[in-house]
């Protein structure tokens, strides 16, 4: 019974995911911060085997679509990986400001 409880607790903890921050990047912050735009894109893999990093381009495209005629400034990017036992989620979370020139 105790063994099962410990095993179940460990499984529950593992499935709740462990976040590993890979990198953080920031560009210059503008004074004008009225129009905040955000996007996130992710890619799942099994035991860390990936065949493409196209999810990063997806985030850039999403950001550009939200600011088609303006200047995207103050780009704050977090690249993190969340592990659920043998499955991993790679994620890019981006926020920025869209300012009309």
């Amino acid at each position, binding site marked *: 019974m105790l063994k099962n409880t410990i095993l179940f607790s460990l499984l529950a903890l593992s499935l709740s995911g462990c976040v*590993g921050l890979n*990198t953080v*990047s920031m*560009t210059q912050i503008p004074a004008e911060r009225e129009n905040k735009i955000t996007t996130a894109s992710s890619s799942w893999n099994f035991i860390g085997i990936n065949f493409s990093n196209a999810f990063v381009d997806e985030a850039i495209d999403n950001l550009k679509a939200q600011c088609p005629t303006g200047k995207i400034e103050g780009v704050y990017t977090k690249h993190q990986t969340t592990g659920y036992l043998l499955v991993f989620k790679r994620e890019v979370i981006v926020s920025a400001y869209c300012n009309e020139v």
Partner: protein
Amino acid sequence: MPIKLQSILGLSFLLLGGCSQLHHVHIGDIDQSQGRLTPFTIEVNELGFDAAKAAEIGAGVAKSASTSEDLEFVALILAISNFGPKTGNPVYNDAYADQVLFEVIKVCPSKKITGLTSVREATNVGPVSGEVVRIKGYCIN
């Protein structure tokens, strides 16, 4: 495995693990429209040392079985005492790159800077390394 062979393997591991390793690069905007560009480089580094790896190598090349066991135990203690994600070998000073921003501000007499490239790299020789933060850029004259 004979001790001599283990020593050779250990030494090969040390040499093969050498050379340069690139961890992270960030390239910024380059403005060539405002004048002539003069390149500059700012580099800070710190001695990196993976004590657990050193103990493991020691255990591999130790002459007696008891020494080898002791060193394996030491490696385990070191590994659990230095828990956490690592980029390159661990260092004993976490502030070695603290001054890079001020160095970059100071470097250009014109106070006009462009094309900053930030590199995090390392030069490894087994468990010892030089952990480097390098900022390259251009002063606009």
